[in-house]
């Protein structure tokens, strides 16, 4: 049974998504328990796969028993297993959260939304587990289509945001597909490991150069790397809270995982540094993304929009780690991915809880929130500390590794940009904490009436648990960051650094 986990982890959510529709037709209240059950099963399988990979080394699973490169192979090493755990874990938190959240925001459409949710998890799991390039495209589109549907549920301006996302996302996926096509023409293979073997003699041909460029541009669109980020703020802002709480942490990071695979496993990174030196450009784009994302975030008046721009800034960190192409950068990029999934889950879900209680997420409406929703805000504060990079949260360690990477590469200006973005993070996050924590920021002599009485109105339990769990995960991964480095990152560091 355990041997079949790699296939099951993709198939079970898929089948369950289809089964959800008649189930929901029968009794709508069964959707949420079914969702949680399936995602708990998925998470267990992800943990099982991770255990196997740590104990026995990378797994190679052949779909249908067909030999690669003719059949589709799932090659699971520590990075895949890690991404699986992140996806299932985040999905589980979102699933638990979606009970009250969907009931409040998209009542009546829970069946379809939950079904699409499972399809989204299918798609994301498939992307990170497969070793076949075309399979990646298929799962990428499965995930994207489900998230298009989920975001459009948001009402208001969500359909417009979704349409823009559809157009841009499809351009991205199609560019990626075209790139894969070029690789197929020149080598005849679609299997990642096989191509790694076949491509080096073709590195100097124009076809392969174009393929590399197209694939990276396509994935960068999905990853919202500046300047291809325009779809992200609107789309994740208009989405329902449970959706943005899962999609925002996961999508861009899965796309980041794809970039890691393309740069390090498909092509050797020498290709991108010597023959086709775009890693240099990528690192500068990453720095610009860091700074511009943070600057945009400062200009926002709505908490959720601000967080979307923060996602754009964090994508810059990941790409910086990848583009610096050294040990510390690689480790820093992966640690940033882990940190981002945990932290953004925590913060986005907490924001959803705030929207649940307060009505919207504009910063001016967040007054005395620490008194009204103490536990939520405490978890939010832990998330903020992780974004800023205060030990012992994982945010500190990931930033430390990135700084080491810049030092190793001799880029002092990048270190200055990293520290500057940290300060900018402090500015916009502490602005929220200030409004939420302090009753009235006006000076004493301008207040004429006493402070109003405020009652504690915490979010419902099912929404509170995932937020707290995510905050706990931030601290646990921070304390265990060395374990993560030794067991999960060091075995997969590419040779030749």
């Amino acid at each position, binding site marked *: 049974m355990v041997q079949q986990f790699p296939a099951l982890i993709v198939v079970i959510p898929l089948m369950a998504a289809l089964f959800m529709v008649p189930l929901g037709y029968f009794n709508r209240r069964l959707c949420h328990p079914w969702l949680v059950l399936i995602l708990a099963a998925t998470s267990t399988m992800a943990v099982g796969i991770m255990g196997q990979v740590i104990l026995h080394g990378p797994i190679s699973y052949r779909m249908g028993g067909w030999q690669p490169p003719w059949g589709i192979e799932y090659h699971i090493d520590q990075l895949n297993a890690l991404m699986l755990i992140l996806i299932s874990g985040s999905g589980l938190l979102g699933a638990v959260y979606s009970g009250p959240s969907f009931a409040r925001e998209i009542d009546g459409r829970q069946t379809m939304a939950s079904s699409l949710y499972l399809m989204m998890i299918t798609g994301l799991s498939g992307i990170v587990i497969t070793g076949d390039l075309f399979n990646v495209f298929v799962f990428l589109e499965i995930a994207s289509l489900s998230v298009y549907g989920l975001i459009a549920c948001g009402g208001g301006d969500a359909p417009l945001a979704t349409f823009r996302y559809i157009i841009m996302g499809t351009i991205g996926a199609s560019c990626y597909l075209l790139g894969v096509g070029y690789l197929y023409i020149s080598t005849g293979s679609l299997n990642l490991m096989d191509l790694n073997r076949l491509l080096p003699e073709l590195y100097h041909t124009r076809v392969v150069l174009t393929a590399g460029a197209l694939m990276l541009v396509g994935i960068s669109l999905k990853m919202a790397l500046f300047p291809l980020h325009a779809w992200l703020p609107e789309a994740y802002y208009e989405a329902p809270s449970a959706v943005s709480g899962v999609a925002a942490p996961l999508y861009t990071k899965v796309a980041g995982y794809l970039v890691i695979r393309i740069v390090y496993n498909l092509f050797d990174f020498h290709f991108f540094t010597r023959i086709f030196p775009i890693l240099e450009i990528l690192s500068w784009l990453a720095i610009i993304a860091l700074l511009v994302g943070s600057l945009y975030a400062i200009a926002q008046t709505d908490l959720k929009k601000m967080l979307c721009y923060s996602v754009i800034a964090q994508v810059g960190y990941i790409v910086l780690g990848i583009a610096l192409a050294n040990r510390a950068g690689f480790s820093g990029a992966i640690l940033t991915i882990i940190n981002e999934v945990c932290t953004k889950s925590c913060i986005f879900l907490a924001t959803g809880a705030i929207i649940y209680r307060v009505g919207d997420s504009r910063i001016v409406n967040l007054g005395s929130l620490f008194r009204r929703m103490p536990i939520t805000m405490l978890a939010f504060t832990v998330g903020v500390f992780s974004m800023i990079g205060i030990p012992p949260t994982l945010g500190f*360690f990931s930033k430390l590794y990135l700084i080491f990477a810049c030092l190793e590469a001799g880029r002092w200006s990048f270190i200055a940009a990293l520290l500057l973005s940290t300060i900018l993070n402090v500015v916009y996050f502490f602005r929220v904490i200030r409004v939420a924590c*302090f009753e009235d920021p006006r000076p004493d002599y301008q207040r004429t009436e006493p402070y109003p009485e405020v009652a504690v109105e915490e979010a419902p339990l099912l929404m509170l648990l995932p937020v707290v769990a995510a905050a706990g995960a931030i601290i646990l991964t921070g304390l265990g960051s060395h374990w993560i480095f030794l067991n999960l990152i060091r075995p997969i560091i590419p040779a030749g650094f």
Partner: protein
Amino acid sequence: MLEHLLLQTILIPALAAPVIILTRRAVGRKAAWFARLGLSYSTLLLLFACLELARTGAPLLESHAFAGPEITFNLLGDGLSLPVALIINLLCLALSFYADHYIDHRIEAIYGEVDEHTAIYHYTRFYALFLLFPTGFMGVCFAANLIGIYFFLEILPLPLYFIMAMFGYIDRVRVAMICLMWAVFGAGFFLVGSIIVYYASGSFAVAGIQALAGSPAATWAIAMFLVTILAKMAMVPFQVWMPWVHAEHPTCIAGLLAVYANVAVYVMLRLIIIPLPADFQIFSTPLMIIALVTMVYGALLTLGQTDIKRFAACSTISQLAYSMLGVCSMTTAGIEGGMFFFLAHIMGKTIIFSTAGIIVYTTGIRDMRQLGGLARKMPLTTALWIIGALGLAGFPPMNSFPAEWIMFTGIFKAGLVGSLTKLVVAIGGAAAITLSVVYCFRSVKIIFFGPLSEQLAADSHVKDPPLSMSLPLLGVAATAILLGLWPSFILDLFHQVVGPLAF
């Protein structure tokens, strides 16, 4: 119980904070006693450790693995860190008693007439945040790992931000943000310096900084650390935040704010001067000049103040520079005197600030010109203020007297042996002391002597404060006098660490 002594001093305040929050419903205001008992216990532990150290001369070393071999949680309690930690802990303990009435007064002033439930909520929130201060300070004193020091230095602005924004004066929220931004700015440079040390020496351990000696990396690392230290100590040109913050923050943590700023001197000694004396020489004279400028600037600023809290705030700027001057002189006497002055300063500043808080609490007036003749109605307060003023001015029997004496011995020695600039700075420093004396005694005269205005005479609130506010200050004053009469207790401990360096 005596194992992991240093870890206990850090953890006990940290653990008492959530205990206070969790038990606030059950025990109400008495939850603050968790803080007081915890701090008493850790103070006793530290006193015991100091006495042990004085007897045996063996420093305390504790190792705790944390996140991998690079980032450990090693704690070092030697002759330098133990006395500093002891005095800081003593001040936290005193202020935890003093704050009792003061915070109630602030809660009433800011939040108006609230029901008991909300009042207890704010009260316990203050104490929980307050406990982060001793945690942070103990961590900074004892951590033997650069990332550890960075972590505790980053913790310290947080309770400062929250307490100031929740319980401070007029424009508190904005000023709290200013303070936080300066702290983050400084912390960034500290991190860069730590990373330079890591790359040059291969580890984050403080003991490994020596390995940098002689290389250009040492100069860069020192420069980075110095930016942090100067920003924290509000030296010219980074002094802009200090008067604002000191004016707006609640007086019950005033002493701790002085510690927060001054502990940077300890950090400088530990990270720069002890491991890398030769590389520091080049910075020594410029820093002494900066310290002198700050001294004079602060003193002149203080002379012009009429607000009682700003008075104390600007004198802090000036006095911070004293310990900097002493430590930068790079002589044994100067360093030990400078560190002892650090301790004397924080004690004297606590007394003065807290007494200023008492005056504002009872009379409701912050302008010194409107006060006068209070000696008749508030004798105890007068005594406390005079003791504090003597402490700031450097008069016997306060401990700042031997501190200044020893410090200037060292500074003059550096001036006579070293360059002419240093001699000029030394003379300038001695002259600046007279300014301190002037403003101290002038304040005493204005506030407490002279005619009493009718308004104050009629006000029934104007009397000596409750015992819970004055007793802790008397305790601190007594300790200061004791150390003034018997400075060798602490100076010998310092000498264990500084002496072998043979400047």
